[in-house]
């Protein structure tokens, strides 16, 4: 069975600083996809970044980047130059390649960016 573990229930960072959120996962598949989703206090969840397991290069999206360690089954999210608008719950998620529906979510990390 696939699992996603986020070991940091809460984190805080000063505005303009860098923060890293941790995620580990387990799957028996070789082809899968990993995601980070952001859920601001308004509750509508949005995609932050996506990583294909077959790609060795770490995905980046502006201030957001990942450190994908396939052998260690680790998928951490780095937020650079943190902004107040980054305050949100962050969820790590996994889906096996070929699966049509079951995106597996971690429990989330609550990030607070302090001015």
């Amino acid at each position: 069975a696939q699992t996603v573990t986020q070991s940091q229930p809460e984190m805080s960072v000063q505005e303009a600083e860098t923060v890293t959120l941790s995620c580990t996962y387990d799957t028996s598949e070789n082809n899968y996809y990993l995601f980070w989703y952001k859920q601001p206090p308004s509750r509508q969840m949005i995609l932050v970044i996506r990583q294909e397991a077959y790609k060795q290069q770490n995905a980046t999206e502006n201030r957001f980047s990942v450190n994908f360690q396939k052998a260690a089954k680790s998928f951490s999210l780095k937020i650079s130059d943190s902004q107040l608008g980054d305050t949100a719950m962050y969820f790590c998620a996994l889906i096996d390649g070929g699966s049509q529906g079951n995106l597996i979510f971690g429990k989330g990390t609550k990030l607070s960016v302090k001015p």
Partner: protein
Amino acid sequence: NAGVTQTPKFRILKIGQSMTLQCAQDMNHNYMYWYRQDPGMGLKLIYYSVGAGITDKGEVPNGYNVSRSTTEDFPLRLELAAPSQTSVYFCASSYSSLGAGSGELFFGEGSRLTVL
């Protein structure tokens, strides 16, 4: 752009009552999903649909039913509500299969349901 619209946003039910959570998307997405989010937990998939007329169970389907008569709408029905169904429910859609890697989930704002 409306995106994914869920109604109602809040609802209180008594044990044994039934209700339907409505979900509509205007992006012409084939795939639609219902998740529930319990406090301190990640989202868990209840049901999903890969197109009109096709639905399938997710991880936690018991106590729920769905239908997909049109591409746009994917209502979730709760029969005989129980306190264990107190949760926040999220509807989501995607253009393609998430397992194909190119898909991105678009979420509604959620519906907070309390069963007393």
